[in-house]
Every structure is written in structure tokens, then in C-alpha cells.
């Protein structure tokens, strides 16, 4: 089967403003994994110059972290018709991965350490707050099991075992979930707020997480789920991706699991 005439457009939210922690790696990972399988990929920056029509061309969304000043510039731009377009495509099931600052922007609001509350798009039912300039940042390697029910089920079917994500977190803000489902349960690290043991959020097909690293290259199953879901949504077909050689990713995972003293099988962590 040739995938040559199938196309995937990856919408990259504000690449020059929101890419503080190597988040470009998520774009590279999605692009390469789709291209290696013969799909044509276009990476479309969704930035200050973009129009509402650009948002509607997108099959897959990626958003990264920003510095405070950059985040302000984004929020000034992401209003009105652009905000509605983003809301619409996520509601319609366009898959996406939003890390670090991006989730704060999709929630109800973010309260920074200094300055005024920044209103978000309110897509995800959560709020984020910075506990104050002297509060410790949540920094370090992080491991969590994906528990969001539909996602966990689909990933488990792909993997043959419960999906465990490994990444790095570095956030001052703390996120508190409302009715939205958590993405996962922290095994090592802080997660959303270091209090309730939850990490990230999952809504429609959108993944929000504090985990960068970047998150996708070392969790290739998550990348493949996003690609697969994007293709299925776009072409209304069921897609099964051909396997790739992920030995290096597995070795990178094992090395970090070993260092953190975390067992790779979640069963042990559950017990």
C-alpha cells in the first residue's frame, strides 16, 4: 500500500514564541515518523501572520512552552476568530500535543507569580497558578502512567502493556483539574501540582502535559497514536502504521528508568 498521496499537515503553534524547551523535537518526531512511512508532511507554522483559514488546514497540532513575555504576545494574538478556530478544530477531534506553557493557555486562566491573571481559551477545564516567586519550580525527570480511559485503552492495544511516559518537567505554575480527565498518574516527579499525583489532561484527542524532554521521541507510541488518529480523522479510515526501529528510544528509556529506580512494568509501580 502506498501512502504517497496521503498528506498530513502539522500545525505548529507559534514556533518562534513557544518553543523554549526543545519542543521542536515533537514536531521533528511526528514529521519524521510520518515521512519514514511514506506520508507527505507539511509543517505549517500558526503564528502572528497566520489566518483563520490556516487553522482549518491543520490535521495535527503541536504547542510548546514559552517565556512569560512571549506567552503574553501569544495571548494578545490568540483572540477572537483565531481563538474560535483553535477551539473548533480541537472540539472537532483534531489530535494535538500541548506541553509546558501551551496547556496553561488552553485552560481557564494562568496566574503568574507577578502580574495579572492571563485568561486562557477555556478549552480544558483546569486552572493554573504560580504559587509565588519564592516557590520552588517543579524540576526533574518525570514518569507517569497514562490513565485517561480511552487513550489508555487504545495505547494498551498498540503496545500490549500499560503505557508509561517518560519526560522532563520544569514548571513554576501548578495546574488544578476541574471536570476534565487527567492524562495520567505520576510515578516519579511532581506532575500537575505535586499534590494530587495527577499529570496532564486529556480532552477529545488533545493531550496536555507538563512533560517535555521533548515528550514524543522517547515515547514513540504517543507519536504514533497522534499520527494514526490524525489520519483516521482526516481520511475516515482505520489506519495501522508500519513498525519502525525504536531501539534507541527504548535504550534511552531503560537508562532513565534504571537511574530513577522505576520499574518499566507499571504493575510493579501499582503494587
Amino acid at each position, binding site marked *: 500500500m502506498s501512502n504517497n498521496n496521503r498528506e498530513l499537515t502539522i500545525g505548529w503553534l507559534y514556533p518562534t514564541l513557544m518553543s523554549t*524547551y526543545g*519542543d521542536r523535537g515533537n514536531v521533528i518526531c511526528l514529521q519524521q515518523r510520518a515521512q519514514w512511512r511514506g506520508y507527505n508532511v507539511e509543517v505549517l507554522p500558526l503564528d502572528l501572520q497566520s489566518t483563520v483559514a490556516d487553522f482549518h488546514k491543520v490535521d495535527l497540532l503541536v504547542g510548546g512552552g514559552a*517565556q512569560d513575555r512571549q506567552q503574553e504576545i501569544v495571548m494578545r494574538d490568540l483572540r477572537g476568530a483565531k481563538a474560535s478556530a483553535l477551539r473548533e478544530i480541537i472540539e472537532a477531534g483534531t489530535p494535538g500535543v500541548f506541553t509546558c506553557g501551551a496547556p496553561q493557555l488552553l485552560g481557564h486562566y494562568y496566574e503568574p507569580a507577578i502580574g495579572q491573571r492571563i485568561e486562557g481559551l477555556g478549552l480544558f477545564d483546569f486552572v493554573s497558578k504560580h504559587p509565588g516567586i519564592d516557590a520552588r519550580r517543579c*524540576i526533574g525527570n518525570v514518569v507517569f502512567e497514562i490513565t485517561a480511559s480511552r487513550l489508555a485503552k487504545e495505547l494498551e492495544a498498540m503496545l500490549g502493556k500499560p503505557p508509561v511516559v517518560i519526560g*522532563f518537567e520544569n514548571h513554576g505554575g501548578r495546574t488544578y483539574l476541574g471536570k476534565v480527565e487527567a492524562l495520567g498518574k505520576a510515578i516519579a516527579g511532581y506532575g500537575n501540582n505535586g499534590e494530587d499525583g495527577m499529570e496532564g489532561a486529556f480532552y477529545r484527542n488533545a493531550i496536555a502535559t507538563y512533560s*517535555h524532554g521533548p515528550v514524543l*521521541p522517547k515515547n514513540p507510541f504517543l507519536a504514533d497514536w497522534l499520527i494514526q488518529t490524525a489520519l483516521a480523522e482526516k481520511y475516515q479510515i482505520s489506519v495501522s502504521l508500519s513498525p519502525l526501529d525504536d531501539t534507541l528510544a527504548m535504550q534511552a528509556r531503560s*537508562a532513565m528508568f534504571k537511574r530513577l529506580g522505576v520499574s518499566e512494568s507499571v504493575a510493579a509501580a501499582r503494587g
Partner: protein
Amino acid sequence: MQLVNGLRLSLAVSAGRTITSLVRLLGLGAASVLPGEIASRIQPQILQMLCRQVKHGVIFIVGTNGKTTTSLLLRTMLERQGLRVVHNATGANLVNGLITALLDNTNLAGQVAADYAILEVDENILPLVLHSCQPRIILCLNLFRDQLDRYGEVDTISQRWQKAISPMSPETVVIANADDPTLSHLGQKLPQRVLFFGLNEPKYYLDEIPHAVDSIYCPSCGHSLDYEGVYLSHQGDFNCPKCGFTKSKLSIDSREWPQILIGLYNKYNTLAAVLVAQEIGIDDNNIRDSIKNFQAAFGRAEELEIAGKRVRILLSKNPVGMNETIRTVNEIKVGGSSSTTLMVLNDRTPDGTDVSWIWDVDTEKLVASGGTIVVSGDRVYDMALRLRYSQKDEKNGCKLMIEEDLKDAIATALEHTPDGETLHILPTYSAMLEVRELLTGRKIL
């Protein structure tokens, strides 16, 4: 009270110096931090008391990249003029490192014998150090994204610098990089006399702005900056179409100066040192001779000969640094005199524990130029994974070799370096120290 303070200083100095001798006698390293720590516990005002005594003044060098190379070059310029210089040459740039360097040139009565102190200062502690010491010159080299797990953001750092420098005496002179929008802006805001260095050579413009940039937005109004051309990361010829903010006027003509070592970043380092040297009245001949005869600082484009093969170590500790070392290595690769590269990625405290920055580096360019890349370090598989994703298809590109053990990695890399070629090693900070120790058989820190 003064007597007590003086006695305490003497005691602190002798304690510090005793520790230095002991550590070096026992071969435990260069003692670049501990003596300062002990001495400042005995005399908390020791930094202030020592700085005040430096005859012609203290020069602070701050910035993300290039501190060590620039201060070494400046030091040789001053010494060529016959001046006595204190310098924290090991790169220990936190408070205790500064004290330790000063202690090295202090007698037991607490008197400092130096005409100038050249002190590399960590960007985060500059405001703190300015409380204790009024420098003659502050040299601001550049501000790039570095070690986000510790420091946070470029904007925040620049704002803190401005707040700390503004109230200082007008006698302090600030020398800043005009091509760096953040620093150009900082310089324009300060009440002190500010001189600017930078490039005025469009032939060095890059084809496109690299991804790993931090400030392509106007530091004054937040609008996108217009670039006539980019020299390196966000450094270039720019102006803001909205508020009129523009690159500061240069106090030095870059076309008139040769550069040290290789890499455009070393042209910046050279210009920075020249401008400081001119400001304090160093002879033109001494400046030019120092540039001509310059020997690299450890690990910074340093060249070694190992088993008949040439090795060049290019410290690469953040996205901009690594992009520039890759650009330099690729120029040599294209010239045909290098085909093997060793990359060593560590994630210890001095490296930054967050290695996500390697995804902001354009490693695609190093892979596309072919040859062999050997990978090692604490995060060997993370680096290897980055390189795998830099390969457009699974067959083309370079040969990737993975060695967990650094010693094996060096041996493999040397083995794959043909006679007559140079092996380039791109390590993070702690990896650079390890590489050097393995290659030269001795510790430096």
C-alpha cells in the same frame, strides 16, 4: 572595629591560602572554590575588601558564551603591557570562585598585589556581586538560552542586570554587544557610559535565522524585529519597525581586526577584548600581538595531539554554542580535513540537568555533511536519538556509533579518524573536563 575587621581578613586569607596549598599538594585539583568558601565564612566582607584593593580596578565579564576565552585573551593583552592581573582562570565564576582567585594574589597581611582583576561572573549572580564591588568595567558578551533548569529566562536576566547596574557610579563603564538585541537595549537604557562592539560585515550573514533563538522580538515594545541579516543566533543587524529601536552604534570597526581561533563566535570574543583593552589604554601593538599568539583556553577550540592525531575540543553547552561549533566543524569537514566527530552529552549540575535543548540544535546539518559521529556521555541514548531523527531517511547521512563508556568512545573516535585529519570533540561542560582528563591524564578542576 576596623582592627577586628582587618584581623579577620588576615585570618580568612591565611585559612584560604592554606587550603589552596593543601589541596594542590595532595593533588586533589586546582582548589578553585573551597578556599573562597572558607575565607568568606571567616570574613563575610572579604570580596569587597579584596576588590577595593585592586590598583586600577576590577573588570567583570558576563554572558552566556565566551567568558573564559574572552577573559583569557584580555588577560594576555594586559600582561603583555606588563600589568599584573588576577583572573579566575578555571572558570569558577560564582562568588567563592571570585574570592579564591583574588586570594591567590593576596599576601598574608591581606594585601592584594594586582593592577587589574578580570573576573568572569555567572550571569545570575552579577547583581549580588555588584553589591560588594564597584567594577571599573562590566563587559556584557551575549545572552542566550542556557540551563533553563537553573536560570529561567533571558529577559528576566537582562532586567535584573539593568536594575543592578543603573544605580552604580557613573565611573563604571559598560561594554556591550550591539548585535544582541537584549544587550543593545540594555546598553541604551543605562545611565553610565556604554561602548558597543559587534560586527559590520554582511558577508558573514547566515542564510536564515536558526531555530534556537530567544529574542527576535523587540526588547522595547515586543514587536517582531526586522533583520537586515543575522550573524549568529539572534545577533545581527536589526531594527524595530514599530518603535524605532535599532542596533547600537559600534565603537569599533570589526573589519580592522583579525580574530583568534576558529568560529565566528571567537570574532565576537576578540572584538570584546579589544574594546576593553583600548578603553584601559593598552598599546595597539600589544593588543595585536596577543591576538596573533593566542592559545586557547581549556576545551575552547583547544587543540591537542594524541597518538599522532590532531584533536580539537569545542565546548558545546547550549543550543547556540552547539549550533556554532557545528557550523565551524562543517566548514572544516567541507574543506576535507575532518570526517569524525565525537559528541558527549552529560546532564550533571554544571551541564544543566535538562537535556531537551539538544532538540533546538540543528544537528541535521552535522549529519548531512556525512562522515562518522561517535556518541557518548551520561545521556548517550538521548543524543543518539536526536541524531537518528536528524537523518532524512534511514540509509543516508552519517555513520552513527554509540559508546556508553567515554574511554571507549574516545578510542573508537580516534580509530575512525584517518591520519592527517582532525577529530572534533563536542562535549558539554562536565564532559569536556572528563575528556580532557582522559586525553591529558590530569585533572584541571
